[in-house]
């Protein structure tokens, strides 16, 4: 199990390969990657800045990963989440789950994402040339937790 909270970019491909290579009994690996999207309507995102709560972030992610491992038979779990400044197209974060059976890997990765979205202390601010706006939490993200 690996959890990394970091400012510097990460290489999705390298991480996915390293994670898959480390498995010797898991036939199924699911990854999710979050990418900085440009703003709709061409408003022009200059940069996204992610703030987090050092200390609590690591604890919250560790708890979410441990919960996933309790609920499903998993061979391994990875969470990487960046903070600080990033531009459109950059990778924000990724999770990976490895299991013998694909359903467990899919469910665990989706569970990790649902909890990470609303229970890990990260806050996104989108900056354009006009100023900055904190990204609002979506009701759907809170609702997504109910099915687990």
């Amino acid at each position, binding site marked *: 199990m690996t959890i990394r909270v970091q400012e510097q970019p990460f290489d999705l491909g390298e991480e996915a390969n390293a994670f898959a290579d480390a498995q010797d009994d898991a036939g199924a690996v699911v990854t999710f990657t979050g990418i900085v999207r440009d703003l709709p309507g061409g408003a022009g995102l200059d940069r996204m800045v992610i703030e987090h709560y050092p200390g609590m972030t690591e604890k919250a992610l560790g708890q979410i990963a441990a919960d996933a491992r309790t609920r499903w038979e998993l061979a391994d779990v990875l969470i990487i*989440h960046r903070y600080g400044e990033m531009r459109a197209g950059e990778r924000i974060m990724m999770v990976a789950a490895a299991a013998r059976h694909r359903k467990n890997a899919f469910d665990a990765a989706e569970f990790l994402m649902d909890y990470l979205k609303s229970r890990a202390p990260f806050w996104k601010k989108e900056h354009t040339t006009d100023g900055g706006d904190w990204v609002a939490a979506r009701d759907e993200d809170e609702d997504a937790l109910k099915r687990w």
Partner: protein
Amino acid sequence: MDVLYFAWVRERIGLPREQVETQARTVNDLVAELRAREERYAAAFADLSALRVAVDQELADFDAPLDGAREVAFFPPMTGG
């Protein structure tokens, strides 16, 4: 007790963390004390439904007790991922 603010709560109050001397027994008591301080605090804590709180780095309710707590953080709903 260390009180921390994140995202727009930090911006509205104007600082990321401060040391607060308090006898508040619950988060709600602490919020009442902070609100009474200055307009910027009153503004930040105007609508508690828009806020979340963590006590010693664990998410908590606003009626959570503070006995022994060393760190309380206020912030908007999280937007990770």
